[in-house]
C-alpha cells in the first residue's frame, strides 16, 4: 500500500481526526492539512475565533501526517504515526471562523528524531495566523 493510502486509512479510522474534521491533501510528497470550519471548533465567541487548542492540534496533526508520508521512503519505518516529543505553538493572529490550511516543513530528519515547522493560514499563505515548531520521535524500533 502506498504511503498516501496508508495515511488516508489511518485518518479515516481515527475518531479524533473525524471529531476535528481534519483532512490531508497530497500532491506528490507535499502535504496540505485542511481544516474546514465548524461551529464546535470555536474557542472565543466574541471575535469569533478558533480555539487555541484546536489550532495546536491542527498544526500538530499536519506535522505528523507529513512525517508519515516522508517516513516510508526510509526503510521499514512506515505504517505508524511518529510520537510527539515537544511542540511550541505561536499564535500570530486570531484564527477566524473559516476554512484553514497548514503546510509542514521537515527541517531535519535524523535516524530517530525529526524537527518540523508548520505554518497555518486562511486567505493568504504569506499571512499565517499560527505556527508550530516541534520534535517528533520516529518509531523505527516499533515499526515491525
Amino acid at each position, binding site marked *: 500500500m502506498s504511503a498516501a493510502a496508508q495515511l488516508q486509512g489511518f485518518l479515516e479510522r481515527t475518531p479524533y481526526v473525524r471529531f476535528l474534521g481534519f483532512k490531508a491533501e497530497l500532491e506528490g510528497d507535499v502535504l496540505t492539512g485542511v481544516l474546514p470550519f465548524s461551529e464546535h471548533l*470555536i474557542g472565543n*465567541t*466574541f471575535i469569533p475565533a478558533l480555539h487555541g487548542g484546536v489550532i*495546536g492540534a491542527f498544526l*500538530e496533526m499536519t506535522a505528523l501526517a507529513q512525517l508519515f508520508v516522508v517516513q516510508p521512503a526510509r526503510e521499514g519505518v512506515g505504517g505508524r504515526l511518529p510520537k510527539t516529543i515537544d511542540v511550541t505553538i505561536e499564535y500570530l493572529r486570531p484564527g477566524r471562523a473559516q476554512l484553514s490550511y497548514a503546510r509542514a516543513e521537515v527541517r531535519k530528519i535524523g535516524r530517530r528524531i525529526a524537527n518540523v515547522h508548520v505554518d497555518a493560514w486562511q486567505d493568504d499563505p504569506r499571512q499565517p495566523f499560527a505556527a508550530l515548531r516541534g520534535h517528533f520521535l520516529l518509531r523505527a524500533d516499533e515499526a515491525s
Partner: protein
Amino acid sequence: MNAGDPPPKDASASEPTPEILRQLADRMAGGTPQSQALGLEFVSVSPGHGSMSVAWREDLVGDPDTQVIAGGVVTSLLDHTCGLAISSAAASASGMFGTATLDLRIDYMRPARPRAGVTAAAHCYKLTHTIGFVRAEAWDEDRSDPIATAQAAFALTGPRPA
C-alpha cells in the same frame, strides 16, 4: 477603568470576588463551543490557579490501536486551563480581563493510559501590566506522573464585559 488600563497592581486591594471567579469558571467550562464539544469540566479556580479535566470518550481517541485519548484533546485542555489561570490572576474586584495566547509549549512525557481521562492544573506565576506567564501540567491518574507539561505566555487585552 479605561480599556487600555493594566489590571490594578495591588492584588490584595483588588482580589476578584467569589462571584467574579464563579462567572469565570462558568465561562471557561461551558462558555465556548469547543469546551462544550470536548466536555471540559471545571475542577477549581483561585486567583492565579486553575484546574480542569476531560473525560475519556470514544470519539476523542487519537490512536485506534491503543484507545488512548488524542494529544489534540490534551492541547485544548492545557490551553484552556492556562487561560483559566491567567484570567483568574488578571481578574480584579471590578471584573474580568481579556487575554490572548502568545505561545504555548507542550512537552509530552508519555501517552495517557488507554481509556483514561485527563486532568490539568495551571499556575500563573508572574503577571506584568501586559503579559502573564503560566505553567501547567496534565496527568491521567497521578499528578506526580504527568503525561504532559506546558509553559505559556499570554497578552492581556483589556477589560471584558461580564
